[in-house]
């Protein structure tokens, strides 16, 4: 099935006041347009109305004045229930239905839309495949039988089920640890490359915003739009003191988040496997370009750890537990900032770039990152 591309979401003078009129607005006269197929990240401190802004799109909250349109159609012109079935919705705590299996959870919105059974089943299998969960072993599990990361992925699949042009994501990766968050972010970016939805994504984390966004809307207290621009532009030219302050003093460092590992020219490690001859491995290590380490991988090509000359001494073959230092892995979608941080924590100062199946595809070093920055020119 061809996924429908995104739709244009436009906010026109949208204001939300809670309680009786006269109180301070939670969202104040917002006007901006999210282009079709873009990820727009709403970011701001607490009380800036970012979640309220997002929830007005599917009318979990209704605006006091102004209007929101999706491809030109006013969201208030449809019954709320119908509108919501056309908009994907992902929340931080996921909210999978505990009494339904993974497959039944994903099938919810297609079911509400009265799709026929075979079509729903095909779609469920397609989505499980898309999020990398094997239908055979996952379709009939209950949410309680999944890991946190798996639940989050099923949550995304469930939101994509009826192929909505627009997705709303409320701090979707906020409840997982940093390493798993990086994985889930990367996975979502790869997914978005395939599905091209218009995504409105709420976070309070500036680094996440820079990484995920095509365009960032920075909101400030009282629900006013402080700046709406591409991440690079916001880092280069913050529109106000508030933005400058909110983005942080380390803007130069944050610019590292604008580039990803996939932007680098990867070098290739000397790869050895358990069972290889030690003497031959030593020879390759000497002829190599001087890093002085060989990377030990398992039968599937997944990294185990680093081996140096000393550990290769003697005859015989290499054993699977020969590696002394563990390998730090990054993915092509990992930002240079996160990659650098990971490298600095590695004893060999090298990061192993792995694909979705965790197979080695190259190496990053501190030098390759700084080369990239030099090419990009010094920060303005």
């Amino acid at each position, binding site marked *: 099935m061809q996924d429908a591309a995104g739709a244009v979401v436009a906010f026109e003078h949208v204001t939300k006041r809670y309680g009786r009129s006269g109180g301070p607005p939670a969202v104040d006269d917002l006007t901006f347009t999210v282009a079709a197929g873009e990820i727009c990240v709403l970011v701001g401190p607490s009380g800036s109305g970012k979640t309220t802004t997002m929830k007005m799109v599917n009318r979990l909250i209704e605006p006091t004045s102004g209007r929101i349109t999706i491809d030109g159609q006013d969201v208030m012109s449809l019954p709320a*229930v119908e509108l*919501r079935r056309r908009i994907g919705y992902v*929340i931080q705590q996921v*909210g999978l*239905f505990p009494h339904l299996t993974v497959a039944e959870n994903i099938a919810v919105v297609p079911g509400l839309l009265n799709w026929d059974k075979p079509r729903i089943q095909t779609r469920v299998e397609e989505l499980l495949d898309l999020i990398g969960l094997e239908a055979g072993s996952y379709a009939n599990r*209950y949410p309680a039988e999944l890991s946190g990361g798996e639940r989050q992925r099923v949550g995304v699949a469930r939101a994509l089920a009826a192929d909505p042009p627009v997705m*709303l994501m409320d701090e979707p990766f906020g409840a997982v640890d940093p390493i798993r968050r990086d994985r889930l972010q990367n996975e979502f970016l790869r997914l978005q490359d395939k599905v091209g939805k218009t995504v409105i994504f709420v976070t309070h984390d500036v680094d996440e915003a820079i990484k995920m966004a095509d365009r960032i809307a920075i909101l400030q207290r009282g629900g006013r739009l402080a700046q709406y621009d591409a991440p690079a532009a916001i880092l280069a030219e913050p529109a106000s003191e508030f933005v400058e302050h909110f983005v942080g003093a380390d803007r130069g460092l944050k610019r590292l988040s604008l580039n990803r590992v996939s932007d680098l020219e990867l070098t290739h490690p000397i790869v050895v496997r358990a069972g290889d001859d030690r003497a031959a491995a030593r020879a390759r290590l000497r002829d190599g370009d001087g890093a002085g380490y060989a990377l030990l991988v398992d039968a599937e090509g997944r990294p185990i750890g680093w081996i140096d000359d000393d550990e290769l001494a003697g005859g015989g073959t290499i054993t699977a537990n020969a590696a002394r230092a563990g390998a730090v892995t990054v993915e092509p979608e990992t930002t240079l900032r996160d990659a650098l941080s990971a490298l600095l924590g590695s004893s060999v100062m090298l990061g192993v770039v792995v694909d979705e199946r965790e197979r080695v595809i190259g190496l990053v070093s501190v030098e390759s990152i700084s080369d990239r920055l030099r090419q990009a020119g010094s920060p303005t």
Partner: protein
Amino acid sequence: MNAGEPFIRFDWIIDNLDQIGQRLGEHVLMVVASVLIGFAISFGLALLARSHRWTYGPIIAVTSTLYAIPSLALFVLLIPITGLSLTTGIVALVLYTLLILVRNIVVALDGVPPEVVEAATGMGYGPLQRFWRVELPVATPVIVAGLRIATVTTVGLVAITTFIGLGGLGYLIINSGTRRFFPTSIYVGVALCVVLAVVADLLLLWLQRRLTPWAAAQGR
């Protein structure tokens, strides 16, 4: 107990199987009827309490008061209306189930995780669909747990209806047992009450497992 009389008179049991069976049937009927009717009323009251929160306090106050009325007094109040009938017995038993069931259903529905409700709303369930297809199924294990308590309690309470000539197994205990100093009848009544309570409880537990296979996964 007369001297020389055996501990249990099995001959009496065999001679009176008919009466024992009839009392057991009466007991089961009263338990099932009262719990079913009590559940239906409690469900309605719980929905009212959830849609209009202010009614929850008064509902609990009234059902607590009913729960606290001694059974004799309750019969005195009911007999002028419904007479010495099965209806009177069942009305009394129903009133005693309300407190347990109303509170339990409200707690069960309140216990549905807010993110589940939010996700359901955000995905486009209407309020009624959301209630029947998400909130109620998720609340079911806790609701059935309350039903089990109410059922076992009612099995014990049926005996009070002996005062109005019913009593189920309680009749065997109080009328033919205690009043006529005939222990065998007491033993039979008590033993069957216990068996009935255990069987009813296991039956409901089985029902809950069947209705909510996912709850077992959650406990793991």
